[in-house]
């Protein structure tokens, strides 16, 4: 029994060599036919980072980048914002000095940067527009340009959500089927959870609810594509 593998190996080694010989080309057998779609393929475009940054500055009240950086960072230790230089490459800006091209598609780091910038924008906007004491006149509110009562019915939410929807996505919320309902659900859920949360927040339940709606819109794919 112990010799069997060796015998097999020797037998194989002494056998005729395995060779591959040329053969005539034979067309593959046709199994089906389908039409090739040669029309131009096209998808939504990524908003240029320059446009994103300029719009971001505008949503911060038309401030200069340095001022936005200072205000977004704040003095509360919230670490909501680092520095513009930390975000430029992540947002897809080209670096002509290094011959790095403009990013044409999103990637994980870019989406993470969008998320971080959205949270900074929305939280500071809640502080500015909704938490200010004395209250800021409606005419001076940039993002939350409405009163934010604690109790809202469907119509009350829809009209306020429409303000944010126009601000971030550029069209009335009613044109996006189901979106008002979805966001109302999100808002209500955040308000309810916030009211019963054991950990204290610097935002009231209503403020937290509107902040979450703002996050949702500022991170929405439609905000970053066109």
């Amino acid at each position: 029994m112990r010799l069997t593998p060796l015998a097999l190996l020797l037998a194989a080694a002494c056998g005729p060599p395995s060779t591959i010989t040329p053969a005539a080309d034979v067309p593959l057998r046709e199994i089906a036919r389908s039409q090739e779609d040669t029309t131009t393929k096209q998808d939504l475009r990524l908003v240029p980072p320059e446009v994103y940054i300029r719009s971001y500055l505008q949503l911060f009240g038309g401030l200069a980048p340095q001022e936005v950086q200072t205000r977004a960072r704040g003095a509360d230790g919230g670490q909501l914002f680092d520095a513009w230089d930390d975000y430029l490459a992540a947002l897809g800006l080209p670096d002509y000095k290094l011959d790095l091209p403009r990013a044409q598609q999103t990637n994980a780091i870019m989406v993470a940067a969008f998320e971080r910038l959205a949270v900074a924008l929305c939280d500071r906007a809640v502080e500015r527009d909704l938490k200010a004491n004395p209250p800021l006149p409606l005419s001076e509110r940039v993002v939350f340009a409405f009163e934010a009562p604690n109790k809202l019915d469907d119509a009350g939410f829809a009209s306020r959500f429409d303000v944010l929807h126009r601000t971030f996505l550029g069209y009335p919320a009613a044109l996006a089927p189901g979106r008002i309902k979805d966001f109302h659900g999100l808002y209500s859920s955040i308000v309810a959870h916030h009211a019963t949360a054991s950990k204290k927040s610097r935002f009231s339940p209503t403020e937290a609810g509107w902040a979450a709606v703002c996050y949702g819109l500022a991170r929405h794919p439609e905000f970053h594509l066109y």
Partner: protein
Amino acid sequence: MGAMLLVAAVAAGDSRQTRTLADYRDFRSLSIDLAGRFPTRDEIATLERPDFDRSTWIDAHLSGPQYAARLTRIYMDLLRLEVGNAVQVTPPATTLRRIQLVGPDKKALYVYYRRGQRRTREATDGEFCMTSVETGLELTFGQPPKGTPIEVKKEVLDANTVVVRPWWLYRDYVEMTPTKRYGAEWTDFDASYVPSDKLRKEADGSPTIEVRVCREEAQVRDMGTIYVTGRVPPLKGATPLPPRLRPLPLDDGYAKTHKGEPLSCRDGLAVSMSVDCGCGIGLQYCMPGDSDANDPGGFMLPTHSPVGLDAALPLAEQNVSTWYKYWWTQELEHFLSHLFTEDRDFRELLTAKYSWVNGPLAQYYRSTAPAGCCGRERAFGLIEDKEPLFAQASVPPSLFAHDAATWLSVPDRGPQASGILSMPVFLGKYASRRARAAVVYNAFLCKSFVASDAELLPSTEPNLMIRPGCSSCHATLEPLAAYFSRVEESTSVYLPGAQFPIKNPLCKLQKNGKPSGFCDAFYDPAFTDGAAGTMRGAYASPTNAEAGMLGLAHVVTTSPEFASCAVSRVTSSLIGRTLSQDDDTLVHALTDVFVHGNYRMKPLVTAILRSDAYRNVNNRRVDANATVEVPGAPPHDAIHGGGP
């Protein structure tokens, strides 16, 4: 109560037009492309008004800075015209570096100097103006000083240095006694002119009132004389006489034959051939550095300005080279902005004589650019930049180096000017003749060099237009590259025909079968024979070499591909995808518009924005025909408060 207000507002009259989702998306696209940002709520309300007219809105936004920025971005993405760290702009003649010493009062003391400065004092000729014995420091260029600094005696300091109120600290540095110091009496400085703290403060943190500079560097005359010492070369292997670390500078052949002749102090040669040339009044012809490094720090600049200079990102300290290179790019951006906002003939991108400069650029063109000439060139009799790409006389005399925010039009840069092709940012970014030719070929004719699959055999054939495997690209590339033959690759010095003929008998093969050594930098030994040497880069087409960059601009802008290429670039960018054969009809129609509109961008962009291709591009994933009966919503201002 707020809710009641809203409800009341909702019930108010609705004068808005019914708009489809496609309308809103189209308006958002237009805003992104022409206003450079998302539309505000107020602007969306404008769309919803019955009298909103898309064409009128487009026309109104085709003159704004964001429209120009949008088109500029297309060509900046293509050409990437920012110069990286590999390129240093620190000519010895115009770069003031500084050494930290210990002064007679035992306090730290900065002294500014130029590398290679000629001095009558033998111990310091071509070196820092005080010896290692006097300072305790051994200075090796490009390395930190070695040794332990000792107290410099007052008489040594006074004998070799002077104090100056320099241009970078004083607005009125040209006065006998400048008094308007940056940040003190001078407060209305341009926001983008920010000397670093290191230039504005002494080592102990106190504000700098005056700077101490080596005596020769502080000289103010415009003309000097060629300095000759009559020194003989040291014996082979001999060590420099202490306290010198390097051998004494010797007289070169040119100096010997032109001893005592006048020399412009703005020439790059002045620092190394004259002892009576300095940096001018208030050191205005030199850039200060905050150390002895090869590329020392100097001024503060934004690391990026993606949304324009008026909204620049936070500043950071930059080195001397970056200061120049930053303003090179800004010159281009001003040029492009003018081209697009004024709707100039797009061919001027390559042919224009005009440009725009500010204070830092004026200083660059007055002193630093000419300082690139003339080391190796003097063997051919060129001792000053005789035909600079930016003529000295064209530099606006009213601009001070610190006028960073003042931009003046220069109608004619000089006979060699040719749109962006002769700008330092282009020549610095694309440093070789072939790189310059290739990028023009690609960017403006939409053609690429693609190697054939020919077998690459060993070859000694120097003519790449016929060498197997190379010819498929180089047969086209070499004649294009020849247009740049007269622009020196490293310095952008223009090589005039009088001193540098395309075929130069001075550089013919000698009896040993080689041309003279000084020829090698400018004449290609591979294309030299017993009668003459051929200028580098010109072998493929002496005619193109003589025609220069203007010749290339003419050939490119009159080629049949130029217009369709520009149209394709702009169309592709605005509709956000690569064009295919399916778009040929559109491109042909738009090219007609472009050409019949005298190569102006506004008619072209208007036609693109009105095309179905543009209007449909952002409605791929949604029911674009959905409409909203403006949902009984209130007049915009009633609830939105007119926010931005």
